[in-house]
């Protein structure tokens, strides 16, 4: 029995061991100094002590910094501050979980004291009855310009120059001193307000009867009492008398360059003012009246898997064909005879080792196809090159994955080269003159931190890539249009021409657009975004984003002038023919938009939408929900691929003739 008791006692101890584990809940780490404040450029040694109540326990504490670039922290607690901010640091007594003690604390690196303030962009003259922006740089002792400083302004003579919300209102001739202050430092600007010499404003614009969406440039000119033109600030405004006055939204917009666009029909009084000189111009705005009926012609049903991109081309036999990819499925690409757009007939399937065939492209001569692969079982994705000269019997020529193993998302074929968006960071340029023996000739990659790329489109020897946070980028890869580019680029030597970024970082697609009606050149940038969560059977509509019209007046001078933004939907791929934009607007379906004339504001509000079509099917993989991937206007039809329901063909009908009674 004694042995049994001993055995039970041993088991008891073993079994209850976890009940008597060391309790670390009373242990804390004390950091000295407390609080921790370090000036930029300074170094300090932290001291960490393990405490049990008031009792000091000898142990080793290690330090870790979240941002080792801006706040260097050695394991032993030696700190060097490189940039102002508040940083989180971890102090750790490591060991088994029941002995581990951790403390997170903040290290404050204060902004260096302000050294000086400096007024910037000061107008040459201040004229009475004119409002001016005040721009001030706040510079710290490290000669860095403080971002978003707390600034106050004061005028010594408010009856001459009054300050309101950071603006200077020049009221009447006289002198005033404007003082800008921040954190005890200040600077002064002496202002002499002159009498506004403008005695007359002349508006040169003669277009007074326009449609919604038409941009009017007032071309206002200020003249002095002697009748000569003078340089004074002119401000613009308008008063609207819309035809529909029943809770109407914004009727139009005017900018301070004197450009006006109306969203709705009605009468508008446009005003140009300089001092006491004011001139009005009355504009009559009528409906744009571009809407047309759209006929659904054919549907090539793909209801069991998601459909990705499409390409439609004329085969070497003169018939018309289409290829569509599949997404998250079995690695299939479907070939269609679309000669009769009312009967989209599947004619062949190519299956490759992949889960997603994201992009499909066909060469200009209709003989070579390229599939991009993702999810290959051997994790060597790359591209697959096809012989599509007989679309009824498509053959795989070869796979190519040299340096492309991670997955090629998009590609473009141009003059015997494939431009393959690779690794999310660059596009590789692959020579396919001999399609059975492709080889990489070069690559194009940005050098910005964390750069990323999504797609590339080529026209006239210029590659337009879409690069998320880095926006749209144009590259000369053998320009055919010397008016646009002549940088000596080639596939072997891609030369960057210009770029444009915008704050959201949603840039997903890019397409060049030379306006036939104005001659203006744009790179149209499209977004992709899902800020509202993932679409699913229970949440089919979730996309966001819009089309950005970026006007390039020379590659160094881009300016975003207009947008096409459908509320509560999001853009994907798009295409331009002539002055018409075709947008796959995901849950918004296909949108066809008139982009003729000068562009300004949100085209969606201006009656520029020609037609829309929301492809749905009750048996689709997501039923009764459009999720339109890409459009391609082709001959007299528009083909679209829809993620949920497959391939569609639609046709824009001619505008109805006005009848008479």
């Amino acid at each position, binding site marked *: *029995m004694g042995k049994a*008791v001993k055995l*039970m006692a041993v*088991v*008891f101890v073993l*079994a209850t061991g976890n009940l008597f584990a060391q309790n670390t809940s009373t242990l804390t780490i004390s950091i000295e100094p407390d609080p921790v404040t370090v000036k930029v450029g300074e170094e300090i040694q932290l001291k960490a002590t393990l405490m049990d109540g008031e009792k000091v326990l000898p142990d080793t504490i*290690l330090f*870790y*910094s*979240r941002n*080792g670039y801006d706040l260097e922290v050695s*394991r032993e607690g030696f700190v060097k501050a490189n940039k102002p901010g508040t940083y*989180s640091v*971890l102090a*750790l007594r*490591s*060991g*088994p*979980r029941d002995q*581990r003690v*951790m403390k*997170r604390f903040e290290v404050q690196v204060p902004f260096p004291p302000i050294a000086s303030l400096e007024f910037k962009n000061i107008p040459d003259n201040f004229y009475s009855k004119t409002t001016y922006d005040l721009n001030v740089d706040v510079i710290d002792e490290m000669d860095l310009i403080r971002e978003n400083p707390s600034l106050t302004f004061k005028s010594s003579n408010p009856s001459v120059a009054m300050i309101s919300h950071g603006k200077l209102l020049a009221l009447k001739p006289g002198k005033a001193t404007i003082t800008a202050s921040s954190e005890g430092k200040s600077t002064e600007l002496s202002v002499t307000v002159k009498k506004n010499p403008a005695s007359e404003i002349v508006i040169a614009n003669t277009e007074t009867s326009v449609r919604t969406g038409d941009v009017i440039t007032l071309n206002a000119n200020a003249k002095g009492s002697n009748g000569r033109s003078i340089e004074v600030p002119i401000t613009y405004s308008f008063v609207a008398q819309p035809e529909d006055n029943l809770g109407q939204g914004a009727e139009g917009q005017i900018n301070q360059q004197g450009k006006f666009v109306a969203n709705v029909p009605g009468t508008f009084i446009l005003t140009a003012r300089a001092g006491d000189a004011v001139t009005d111009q009355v504009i009559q705005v009528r409906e744009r009246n571009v809407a047309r009926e759209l006929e659904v012609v054919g549907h090539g049903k793909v209801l069991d*898997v998601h459909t990705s991109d499409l390409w439609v081309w004329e085969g070497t036999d003169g018939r018309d064909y289409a290829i569509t990819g599949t*997404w*998250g*499925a*079995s*690695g*299939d690409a479907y070939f269609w005879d679309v000669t009769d757009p009312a009967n989209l007939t599947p004619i062949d399937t190519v299956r490759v*080792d*992949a*889960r*997603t065939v994201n992009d499909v492209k066909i060469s200009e001569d209709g003989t070579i196809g390229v599939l991009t692969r*993702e*999810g290959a*079982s051997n*994790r060597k*994705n790359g591209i697959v090159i096809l012989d599509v000269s007989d679309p009824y019997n498509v053959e795989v020529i070869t796979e190519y994955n040299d*340096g*492309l*193993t*991670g*997955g090629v*998302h998009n590609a473009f074929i141009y003059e015997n080269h494939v431009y393959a968006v*690779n*690794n*999310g*960071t660059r596009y590789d340029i692959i020579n396919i003159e001999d399609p059975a023996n492709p080889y990489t000739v070069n690559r194009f990659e940005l050098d910005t931190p*964390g*750069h*990323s790329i999504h797609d590339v489109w080529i026209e006239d020897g210029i590659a337009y890539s879409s690069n*998320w*946070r880095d926006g749209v980028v144009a590259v000369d890869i053998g320009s055919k249009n010397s008016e646009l580019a002549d940088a000596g680029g080639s596939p072997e030597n891609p030369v960057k021409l210009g770029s444009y970024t915008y704050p959201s970082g949603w840039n997903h697609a890019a397409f060049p657009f030379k306006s036939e009606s104005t001659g203006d050149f744009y790179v149209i940038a499209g977004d992709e975004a*899902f800020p509202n969560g*993932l*679409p*699913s059977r229970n949440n089919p509509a979730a996309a966001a984003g819009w089309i950005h019209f970026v006007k390039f007046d020379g590659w160094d001078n881009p300016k975003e002038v207009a947008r096409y933004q459908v509320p509560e939907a999001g853009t*994907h791929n798009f295409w331009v023919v002539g002055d018409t934009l075709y947008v796959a607007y995901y849950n918004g379906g296909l949108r066809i938009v008139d982009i003729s004339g000068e562009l300004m504001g949100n085209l969606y509000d201006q009656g520029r939408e020609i037609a829309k079509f929301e492809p749905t099917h009750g048996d689709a993989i997501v039923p009764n929900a459009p999720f339109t*991937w890409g459009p391609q206007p082709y001959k007299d039809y528009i083909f679209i691929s829809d*993620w949920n329901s497959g391939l569609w063909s639609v046709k824009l009908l001619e505008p109805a003739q006005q009848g008479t009674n």
Partner: protein
Amino acid sequence: MKFLKPLLTIFVFLIGLNTSHLKAQDYYLYVAAESDDDVHLIHFNGQSEQGEIAETIEVGTWPQENEGPHGLTVSPDGKYWFVSIAHGYPYGSLWKYETGTNEFVDKVELGMFPATMDISKSTGLLYVVNFNLHGDMEPSTVSVVEPNTMMRLQDVETGIMPHGSRISDDGRWQYHVSMMTDELVVIDTENLEVAKRLNLSKMNDRKPEMDHSEMNHQNMKHSPIVKPTWADPHPSKPLVYVAGNGSDELIEINTNNWKITNRWKTGKAPYNLEISHDGKLLVASYKGEGATGVWDLEAGKELAKIPNSRKVSHGVSISPDDKFAFISMEGIGGEPGSVDVINLETLKRVEVIETSKQAGGIIFWKMEN
């Protein structure tokens, strides 16, 4: 003797407490389906030997981009699970979820194609390799994350295409392999520095006397032969086992003298491996032939090679009671993935649980009665 009865009662109760796993019936684990952006919670009944998907958690942000959930781990207290999302713009990320509710908690951006991860019992920090599967052949990193706050503390530079992050039982050493430089690498989990490297090629076996220290293996352009893909330290012995995916072998390394002590030929392309908690068995997925090998480590002998349900075997997770091994199967193309369950006593495949496409990362969560 009267005291014996209550003592016996306590004895029985406590035995019950500490050996409850012997009677475990319900096994729960997570598996990531890389090509469908899903993570499944798998339930397996140990008595009926039948399993099912208990819940599917959609991960990622972009429906039109496959973001690729790859690696998984569960916090030591079992309260959270973590998944590495391979693709981003361009960087991947680590996402944190609460176990049970499977609700998203937080995420942090990592490097290129973050993959396998583990949490140190010593530091409490999470160490995840940035596999950079699709990049140029250049050194990548192991990211170190504080998992409570999801603070990314440091990136430790390592070899080319690092993979297979597993940490010693005491939490002090993180082992991974550098696939394209044929190296086993160990990181000091406290100092966050590479402590040692070991060339795994046979050339290293033949000329042990040769001093490689000045040869800068890191930057030498050898074609890799071993192509190691996984490393797992033995739970109680100073040994680490490596899967030689390119050389079709298991490699045993003695961590005391940092020498290779055994090489065993395996099925084609061993990919992941895990050592049983009692240290007796090693289970390896043979990616190249769709099979699983079960090895007796003491004897250095393959006890069984068990065909998997489909091609492209991926991850291995062994239940804490060492009764079952769960193997994730990628499949090919549109084929569903699966989790194959192997009874480690009978050495038979007892269940196939179909999953979304390309089942990869797999991690055990808990056992329940």
